[in-house]
């Protein structure tokens, strides 16, 4: 119970910020992605499992291609839940969050909530479910002690932020720029001001995602927030190694170690 809350506490005790990683289930096949997730579980504090969608509207080209590869490896929602169960055999402490699009979650019907709880999922991030449409999912997840992780963006008005934080749990995900995943960060000052404002309104941890490509940015962002999310960069590393297992793991590990250090630096 409360794995997400615990993970932020743990990071704090270790004088670190929280490192969250994203990878897509089934890229480029289920077994390969399982090996990636196991590696991520040993370095990251929270792992996000991307649920591939045929129409990933918010993704840049790296994650789009990742979704396409995963879908052509015949990944299904039930296989993703089996994957989570297998990961839970290896690790019972670290939070696992599913991140995806509304239609894939809707397609599971009302059983969705029971099924993800049973598999060991701690929360959902639904990219195309803004605050205004989220009441049903928020309540359903709350009933079973799971978190609906909210996204806040540079264009979210202050008034809306105040509403969002009241109906939030787990952590808040600040999208660092106007754009799709994997693009370049534009305005650090804006991120800084916005995160500061969110933090003044809530005690829930705030992490920064989108555009965290290198250790330097991770370090800068983690200084002004409670953690960072790294996604496209990790997929890119594996892609560059053509999904060859040993090389992919070697370079992934190297990158994770660096991100780990960078979010720890004072």
């Amino acid at each position, binding site marked *: 119970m409360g794995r997400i809350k615990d993970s932020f506490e743990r990071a704090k005790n270790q004088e670190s910020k929280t490192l969250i990683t994203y990878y897509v289930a089934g890229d480029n096949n289920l077994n390969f992605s399982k090996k990636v997730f196991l590696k991520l579980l040993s370095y990251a504090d929270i792992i996000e499992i991307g649920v591939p*969608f*045929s*129409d*990933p*509207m*918010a*993704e*840049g*080209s790296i994650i*789009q291609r990742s979704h*396409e590869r995963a*879908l052509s490896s015949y990944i*299904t*929602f039930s296989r993703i839940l089996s994957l989570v169960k297998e990961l839970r055999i290896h690790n019972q402490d670290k939070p696992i969050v599913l991140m995806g*699009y*509304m*239609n*894939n*979650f*809707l*397609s*599971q019907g009302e059983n969705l909530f029971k099924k993800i709880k049973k598999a060991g999922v701690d929360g959902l991030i639904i*990219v*195309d*479910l*803004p*605050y*205004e*449409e989220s009441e049903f999912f928020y309540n359903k997840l709350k009933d079973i002690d799971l978190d609906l992780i909210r*996204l*806040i*963006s*540079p*264009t*979210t*008005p202050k008034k*809306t932020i105040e509403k969002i934080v009241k109906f939030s749990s787990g952590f808040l995900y600040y*999208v660092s720029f*106007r*754009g*799709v995943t994997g*693009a370049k960060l534009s305005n650090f000052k804006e991120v800084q001001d916005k995160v500061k404002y969110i933090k003044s309104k809530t005690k829930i941890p705030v992490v920064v995602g989108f555009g965290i490509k290198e250790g330097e940015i991770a370090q800068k962002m983690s200084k002004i927030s409670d953690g960072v999310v790294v996604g496209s960069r990790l997929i890119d590393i594996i892609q560059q190694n053509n999904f060859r297992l040993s090389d992919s793991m070697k370079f992934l590990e190297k990158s994770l170690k660096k991100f780990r250090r960078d979010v720890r630096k004072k």
Partner: protein
Amino acid sequence: MANKNNNYNYPDKNGRFGSFGGRYVSETLISALEELESLYKKIKNDKKFQEELTNDLQTFVGRPSPLYFAKRWTDKLNGAKVFLKREDLNHTGAHKINNTVGQVLLAKKMGKKRIIAETGAGQHGVATAAVCARHGIECIIFMGSEDIERQAQNVYRMKLMGAEVCPVSSGTSTLKDAMNEAMRDWVSYIDDTHYIIGSVAGPHPYPMIVRDFNSIVGTELKKQSKILFGKYPDKIVACVGGGSNAMGIFYPFIKDKEVDLIGVEAAGSGLSSGKHAAPLSDGSPGVLHGMKTYLMQNSDGQILGTHSVSAGLDYPGVGPEHSFLKDMGRVHYEAATDKEALKAFHDLSRIEGIMPALETSHALAWVSKNAKKLKKSDVVVVNLSGRGDKDMQSVAKADGINF
């Protein structure tokens, strides 16, 4: 029961048509959608705005479009009298321009410097390029690479009017992917860009705005039919892809329950073949492109590839108001195959001297099939949503002819 539709007032304040519609987009887009909605509400009844719009519709688009009696076709069909609402005579050749002339004015009022749009058959792209040229606004059109190939002439038209055409080769390389890419662009340049969605689809307020701008078609038809036959038509038929021409001609008649409304989807190679683009006939509710609506999808919520001979109907979703009207039974939805549409295309070309768009040919195919089952006194109006010049290549290919 008799008054069932008399309170029809949708979307509701949450942008919903019953359980359909809504605003399922990333948080970044919400404020832009709210800005658009509040501006639209403020100016839609503004006298000056309406004057400007009416002037553009008359002098730039060429409205009102005539209501034409297809006499020879009626004689051949030997059933109901068939009239055609001639949206094909509009500037740029389809109903699409009714929406773009309106939305470009909204964009200007919001001070946006850049306009983006998605297009399937290219008609919406051409209609957007035309209004952008006229107002001197930068214009970027997203188009699936497969559609670029089958609608090469429209691509060139857009370029001639100064638009930049961006090929989209992700996913299935058709309309749905062009829409994904337009959304990605919009989220990246949200501050200075207006997205002109071309159908009654997408997040609220688009289904409402696009419907309202196109409803000039149905409003004119009301007047014209009273004058021409002293009553409203018995049946109105329109093709449905995203469904903007259908909503445009249906909407003013929704409360007039004596008028049957028939939407015709693309059955492609046949509904049972799975190779079609008919979510209302053979789909299930889900969420795509910001709206809850009927979709073609598998049991895991992955969107299926579609097939239709007409690029403009080749879309796995449909405007949310159509989903609502289907479930409440106010509009009757059927589907016509590629083959039936092509036959209707040839029939109308030869018998009436009017080459319809392949999209429109689906609505005509319904009339071919059903006119003789109707009374001779019945009046059927087809929304002739677009002209077929753009489809020469596709039709020739289907006939085995190479230019």
